């Protein structure tokens, strides 16, 4: 390990250190210590966590701009980690998501007063694991980082400890273990066939191994490895047919945790799959196989998510199915992989995926956290319970409507631009049928999104007590919706940023 290795890893180290600081601060801020009031002192933990996130954020910015130390996009630490701009892009996404979740979950967390320190510690360890995962460029590191994100998430999902929450935790634990086993099996096949665990070496090795024409991916072993790896990450990305756990876990887990999982966990799984995929898809010959595989997954995920969402009566379950469908739209970008597009750019696939993910992060966080604030105060998580929300909290009602319209894909929000970019990329690659399926799915999705918007804005309610969200919740929701509109109106700002971040192709 030399200085450069430490610099490359510094955002991750800072995030892990913050987790440990929170754990110690929790002990120091124990009840009645320093004569503090019972919750008054513990509440400081939220602020320590929130402000402490500046540490990893500044260190990541430092790497991006190269202020101090040498930033490099080559693999460091014996090839196990790559702190290129692609990694940093996703690290910013994860830090931002964590900050929003912490900011918005303060009122919600009063019910977990005794476990506040553990909550933040586990959340930050999961975030550190994700930040490591998005930059991992070696199979064992990928596996360990993935486990570091999964285990804290399991404990967080079971935090509420009622029947639903324990069931959510147990389901999450077992299915997460199953998916990791599949992934591990895939990694073992890849290692057994190529004899290397570093991605760059695997790619070099695959080039020297015989390529059988007619067999998908040129070799049965690679084919099985790819299928198992995609299946393993499929659980984390919550795409069909590996989506069964999502509604139960989102319903049973504390809602801020569900928001965290639906954005950060999903984005980091997409990131590591992109890194693996675009390193290996350098071969023109296998691009076609990738395309078919991901086109099928995208179709399944969009269709299953949207059709099942139609019949939901519970808001959390509906949002869960909505995220499955959203992951399907992102998969459309994966299907449009490495074949150079008609515009001559080979990066339009990854660019559209990252743009969609950025927009999805802002929008989905705002929607999840906004509904968390509402459901937490009304105690009613059915869709019908949202009726006439505009009379109880006009600001939240308007913000949530914009958020839902962005998830649906209405201009001028980012949802529209992202869908336009990703679908047109698919058309560029000759996947016209997939673009048609995606558009039809969007129309289906309009039914349930618009139904909720209608209920919120024009529904009737007997309960007219105003809902007053806390400043932190409002701030997180407003930032999310503002981001959704800004990214939608001036997409070139972020598209330029994303272009700089595509260092993996």
């Amino acid at each position, binding site marked *: 390990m030399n200085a450069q290795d430490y610099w490359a890893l510094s955002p991750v180290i800072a995030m892990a250190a913050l987790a440990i600081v929170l754990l110690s601060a929790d002990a120091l801020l124990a009840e009645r210590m320093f004569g503090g009031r019972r919750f008054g002192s513990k509440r400081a933990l939220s602020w320590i966590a929130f402000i402490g996130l500046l540490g990893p954020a500044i260190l990541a910015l430092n790497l991006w701009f190269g202020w101090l130390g040498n930033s490099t996009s080559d693999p460091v630490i014996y090839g196990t980690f790559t702190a290129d701009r692609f990694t940093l892009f996703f690290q910013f996404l994860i830090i931002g998501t964590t900050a929003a979740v912490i900011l918005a979950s303060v009122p919600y967390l009063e019910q977990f007063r005794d476990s506040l320190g553990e909550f933040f510690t586990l959340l930050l360890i999961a975030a550190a694991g994700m930040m490591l995962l998005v930059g991992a460029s070696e199979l064992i590191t990928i596996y360990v980082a993935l486990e570091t994100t999964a285990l804290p998430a399991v404990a967080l999902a079971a935090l509420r400890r009622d029947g639903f929450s324990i069931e959510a935790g147990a389901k999450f634990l077992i299915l997460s273990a199953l998916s990791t086993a599949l992934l591990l099996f895939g990694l073992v096949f890849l290692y057994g066939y190529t004899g290397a665990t570093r991605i*760059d070496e695997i790619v070099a090795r695959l080039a020297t191994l015989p390529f059988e024409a007619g067999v998908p991916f040129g070799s049965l072993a690679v084919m099985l490895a790819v299928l198992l790896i995609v299946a393993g990450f499929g659980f984390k990305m919550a795409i069909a047919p590996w989506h069964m756990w999502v509604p139960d876990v989102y319903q049973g887990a504390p809602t801020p945790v569900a928001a965290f999982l639906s954005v950060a966990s999903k984005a980091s799984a997409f990131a590591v799959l992109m890194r693996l995929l675009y390193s290996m898809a350098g071969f023109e010959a296998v691009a076609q196989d990738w395309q078919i595989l991901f086109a099928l997954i995208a179709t399944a995920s969009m269709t299953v998510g949207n059709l099942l969402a139609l019949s939901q009566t519970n808001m959390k379950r509906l949002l869960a199915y909505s995220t499955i469908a959203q992951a399907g739209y992102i998969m459309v970008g994966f299907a449009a992989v490495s074949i150079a597009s008609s515009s001559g750019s080979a990066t339009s696939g990854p660019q559209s995926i990252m743009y969609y993910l950025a927009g999805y992060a802002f929008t989905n966080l705002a929607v999840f956290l906004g509904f968390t604030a509402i459901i937490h105060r009304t105690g009613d998580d059915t869709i019908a319970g949202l009726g006439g929300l505009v009379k109880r909290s006009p600001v939240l009602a308007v913000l949530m409507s914009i958020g839902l319209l962005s998830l649906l894909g209405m201009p001028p929000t980012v949802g529209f631009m992202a869908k336009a970019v990703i679908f047109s990329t698919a058309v560029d690659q000759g996947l016209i049928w997939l673009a048609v399926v995606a558009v039809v799915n969007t129309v289906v999705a309009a039914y349930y999104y618009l139904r909720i918007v209608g209920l919120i804005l024009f529904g009737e309610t007997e309960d007219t007590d105003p809902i007053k969200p806390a400043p932190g919740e409002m701030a997180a929701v407003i930032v999310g919706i503002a981001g959704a509109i800004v990214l939608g109106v001036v997409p070139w700002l972020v598209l330029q940023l994303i272009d700089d971040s595509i260092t993996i192709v």
Partner: protein
Amino acid sequence: MNAAFDSGPIATLAFYLASALTIASALIVVTQRDLVRAVVALAMSFVGVAAIYFILNAEFIGVVQLLVYVGAISILIAFAVMFIGDLANAGTLSQSRLISAVAAILLLATVIFVAYNTDWTDIKDVTDADAVAGLTGRYEVAGTSDDKNVISAVNSDVEDSRGGALVDGSSHIGPALISDFVLPFETLGLLLIAALIGALLVIRGRQKDDAA
């Protein structure tokens, strides 16, 4: 099939016996409804895996497997089972048994098919020095260039490990943990903290519920 170990008749027989033990005990683990019996079967399955490590000349991993898994983990699981008590009817997740069975058999069939139809000896034919070094995990950093590709294989070691029996790997495990794999190794520390806190968090909640 390419057998990396000394594939004499006795080694082959031992391999099949150990595999049979592993698979048979694993089947008992998943079908047995009595948790204590399942734990004993799990320990036997660990013994079978340890035997396979020994047959593959990975004595160190075999000993660790015996000490840690058969010795410690099994006992821990047995204690946990005793503390939790009656869980005999806690099988609520197995509602769709048919689907699970079909999926598992399909996966098994695919894996066996691919394993038999893949020429695993292909990697023997790689002559590129870098590639051979990667295959065997033996590197020697040549020169001071920062180019990551400037690595050359230690050829005698390569022949050692590819021809006939594998060399004893225990002396390479320590250095590997603090060089090539230092990042995942250190990350495990973070993972263990998370596991510890998470377990305490869930269990503490249970105790409070019981007391209330």
